[in-house]
């Protein structure tokens, strides 16, 4: 992922966009964070957040005209949060006062501020904090301008005096009874002689045309450029009530003072007055917040309107705040939730992980854990797809030889097994020289329910006609998920060659992942699912003899956008007369079962969370149409059936209770399926199977092997090597033999004993690190 693309993806995520209240506030008070403090009863922290944006919190809390409340998301449900009243509660109930702002070192440049209303006071405070030497010239005998017009019920003089003590703290010179006019006394020209820049916060009164060099409009107001607050004199800036006449908005006046101070600072530093100012003032946020499922609740009433909220009232009102966030993807994805952040941050971590040359790649595991199921994109208001980002990162890791070898090794070896002679097969239907279609059952249905593959093949031969061939193998999805492009391409290209040799027949898949992969990689091929054919054709006679009363459907994540397959499964259940209920998150919103993206091989902790969340959604038996979904659910004790289990009934009396086979048995089932097909469909005599080494493995040890991803065929290799070479250790305490063998990149250790011709397995473990054996020099 290059820097540009990472930036684009980061910016696409809207989670860090401000909430509507903050975006609507002319000075962007972080009302959400402030309210969160009040929710916890921490008024000091609430005031500190308010004070971070507002230099005079005691004043603004009492006089703000709160455009934030008009914008509040909660108003779409019932009533806006009483943000202004909560601000006032912060000022009233905090045990601390406004904090001294962070001040930059003093500069030589001097700025005059004419007028001490809110805009002038804010401009003065902001510029003084930036280190400028600031003097305020106020015509009246006390500062405050129109603030003094508020009645004592709203704003007591004490509150003004308390906040204005900041002027002393900031070392601002306040000159009272000091009008600046062009009629004697101090003039703008004389001020300009003395100061490097001037801010005019002179309120709504008109001015006479003067020698100030300022352009005055026909209605007697100074002409002010909206974005920069500049006037026709480059050293003079103006704003506040003068721009708005008698429609007094205290918070807008404050904004004017602040933004004019930004311009003055830029002017004095010789910087652009206009660059990067598009997010100043109120703007429309891109943040999306779902209000689904939130019950209406009116605003908390105030027992005493003059005193304002008591602490109890303020906290009750704060609890109504929606704490607006997007997090739509994090809410539905256990993987995204596990790493305790959200895509904007994840994109940055993934980019950094890819870009670093020295040091640890700390995001490797996070990148390799994603199920690549794109549920995040399905729920994202702006279609951000973590699957695309993680897959891209995996491909880059493989390209740079930075992919941890242990991450996908087991799954890739499983794929190699499926595409080896042990399982791979391609044949026309017996008696046919060509194929109109080929059945591609895939590796996992063959591993989980090999007998169904034989039954489906028979059904297809009867119903499709024109010669239905059989191709056994793996579609290449594990390599694709592992970021192994070359391996994926090789698997697809080998399959494409096979298809071509067979006359380019239609592909009929049993697995949603194969279906999607072929559609994506073989755009010219005609691909269809067994499920669709079953929906369109009469069901076989074996169906509908033992039907569960009530089921719910888990849609495969690979079929997220395949309505045809989704509808087909529902249509089959309809034909069978099964009562079906739907899960809340179904069809395009269905989560992965944890097999996707090889998640379960990389991070069993997250995989467990993912599958557990899904199985806990309903008590009904689940119907899946992917063998891995079925087996993953069944492994957690969930009653689950593949849709094929209702049509081609397995031998078990209760197929929903069947646990899927372990890794070793999955290999064996595939290998046996191939031999079975060759023997029974094509009447090809296969070489007699050698009697395999007899092993005795207790259920506990079996489970251990499964967890440690050690195959029985690897155990056999270790023992065969130890017994033939005589190279093993004897544990004097237990009498057990301990042997090890490293077929390729993993060393397997097996502790065993023998009973006649049978080997009893007591323990097995493995490591990837290589031990240099033999005698040292």
């Amino acid at each position, binding site marked *: 992922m290059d820097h540009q693309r990472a930036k684009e993806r980061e910016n696409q995520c809207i989670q860090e966009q401000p909430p509507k209240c903050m975006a609507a506030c002319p000075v962007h008070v972080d009302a959400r964070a402030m309210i969160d403090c009040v929710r916890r009863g921490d008024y000091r922290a609430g005031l500190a957040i308010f004070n971070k944006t507002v230099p005079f919190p005691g004043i603004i809390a009492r006089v703000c005209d709160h455009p934030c409340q008009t914008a509040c998301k909660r108003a779409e449900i019932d009533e806006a949060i009483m943000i202004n009243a909560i601000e006032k509660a912060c000022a009233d109930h905090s045990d601390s006062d406004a904090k001294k702002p962070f001040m930059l070192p003093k500069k030589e440049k001097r700025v005059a501020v004419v007028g001490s209303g809110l805009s002038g006071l804010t401009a003065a405070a902001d510029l003084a904090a930036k280190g400028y030497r600031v003097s305020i010239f106020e015509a009246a005998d006390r500062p405050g301008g129109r603030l003094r017009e508020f009645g004592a019920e709203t704003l007591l003089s004490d509150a003004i005096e308390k906040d204005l003590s900041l002027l002393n703290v900031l070392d601002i010179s306040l000159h009272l009874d000091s009008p600046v006019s062009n009629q004697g006394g101090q003039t703008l020209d004389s001020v300009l002689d003395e100061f490097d820049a001037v801010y005019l916060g002179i309120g709504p009164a008109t001015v006479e045309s003067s020698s100030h060099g300022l352009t005055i409009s026909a209605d007697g107001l100074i002409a002010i450029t909206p974005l920069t607050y500049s006037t026709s004199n480059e050293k003079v800036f103006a704003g506040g009530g003068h721009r708005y006449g008698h429609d007094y908005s205290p918070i807008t006046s404050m904004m004017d003072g602040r933004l004019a101070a930004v311009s003055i600072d830029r002017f004095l530093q010789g910087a652009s007055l206009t660059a990067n100012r598009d997010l100043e003032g109120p703007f429309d946020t891109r943040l999306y917040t779902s209000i689904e499922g939130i019950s209406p609740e009116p605003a908390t009433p105030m027992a005493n309107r003059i005193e304002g909220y008591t602490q109890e009232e303020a906290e009750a009102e704060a609890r109504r705040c929606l704490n607006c966030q997007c997090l739509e993807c994090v809410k539905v994805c256990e993987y995204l939730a596990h790493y305790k952040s959200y895509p904007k941050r994840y994109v940055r971590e993934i980019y950094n992980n890819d870009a670093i040359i020295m040091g640890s790649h700390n995001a490797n595991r996070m990148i390799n854990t994603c199920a690549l199921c794109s549920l995040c994109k399905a729920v994202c208001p702006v279609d951000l797809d973590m699957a695309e980002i993680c897959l891209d990162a995996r491909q880059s890791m493989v390209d740079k030889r930075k992919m941890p070898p242990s991450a996908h090794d087991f799954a890739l070896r499983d794929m190699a097994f499926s595409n080896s002679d042990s399982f791979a097969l391609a044949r026309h239907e017996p008696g046919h020289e060509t194929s109109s279609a080929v059945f591609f059952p895939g590796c996992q249905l063959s591993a989980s329910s090999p007998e169904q593959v034989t039954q489906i093949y028979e059904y297809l031969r009867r119903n499709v006609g024109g010669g239905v061939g059989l191709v056994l193998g793996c579609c290449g999805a594990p390599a694709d998920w592992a970021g192994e492009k070359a391996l994926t391409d090789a698997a697809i290209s080998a399959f494409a060659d096979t298809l071509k040799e067979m006359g380019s027949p239609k592909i009929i898949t049993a697995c949603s992942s194969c279906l999607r992969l072929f559609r994506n990689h073989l755009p010219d091929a005609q691909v269809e699912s067994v499920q669709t054919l079953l929906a369109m054709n009469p069901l076989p006679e074996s169906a509908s003899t033992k039907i569960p009363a009530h089921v719910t459907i888990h849609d495969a994540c690979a079929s997220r956008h395949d309505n045809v397959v989704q509808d087909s499964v529902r249509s089959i259940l309809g034909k069978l007369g099964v009562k079906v209920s739907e899960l809340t998150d179904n069809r395009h919103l269905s989560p992965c079962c944890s097999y996707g993206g090889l998640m379960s091989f990389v991070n069993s902790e997250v995989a467990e969370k993912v599958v557990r969340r899904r199985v806990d959604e309903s008590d009904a038996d689940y119907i899946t149409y992917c063998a891995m979904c079925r087996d993953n659910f069944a492994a957690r004790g969930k009653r689950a059936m593949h849709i094929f289990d209702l049509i081609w009934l397995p031998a078990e009396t209760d197929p929903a209770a069947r646990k899927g086979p372990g890794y070793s048995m999955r290999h064996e089932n595939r290998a046996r399926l191939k031999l079975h097909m060759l023997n029974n469909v094509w009447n090809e005599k296969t070489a007699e199977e050698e009697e395999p080494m007899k092993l005795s493995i207790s259920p506990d040890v079996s489970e251990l092997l499964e967890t440690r991803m050690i195959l029985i065929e690897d155990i056999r290799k270790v023992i065969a090597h130890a017994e033939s070479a005589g*190279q093993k250790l004897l*544990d004097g305490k*237990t009498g057990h*033999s301990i042997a090890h063998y490293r077929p390729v990149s993993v060393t397997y250790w097996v502790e065993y004993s023998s009973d006649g011709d049978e080997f009893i397995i007591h323990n097995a473990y493995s490591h*990837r690190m290589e031990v240099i054996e*033999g005698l040292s020099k």
Partner: protein
Amino acid sequence: MSENGIASSAPALTCTKCNIELFLGKVTVSYLGSEFPVDLLKCPVCGTVFVPEDLALGKMLQVEQALEDK
């Protein structure tokens, strides 16, 4: 990699090929181009080494993962 505990937790092991008890000796382990000296039980005659389970699934795994993330 620590050698602590290996000697005490390891059972009395004999190399069946050489019919001799294993002793604690210097062994080199390597992964992804990095090599480390470790004290492990080994056969004094043929050099066959024993890697105990707790080492393989503990410290050794940690080092493997750290090296994989380098």
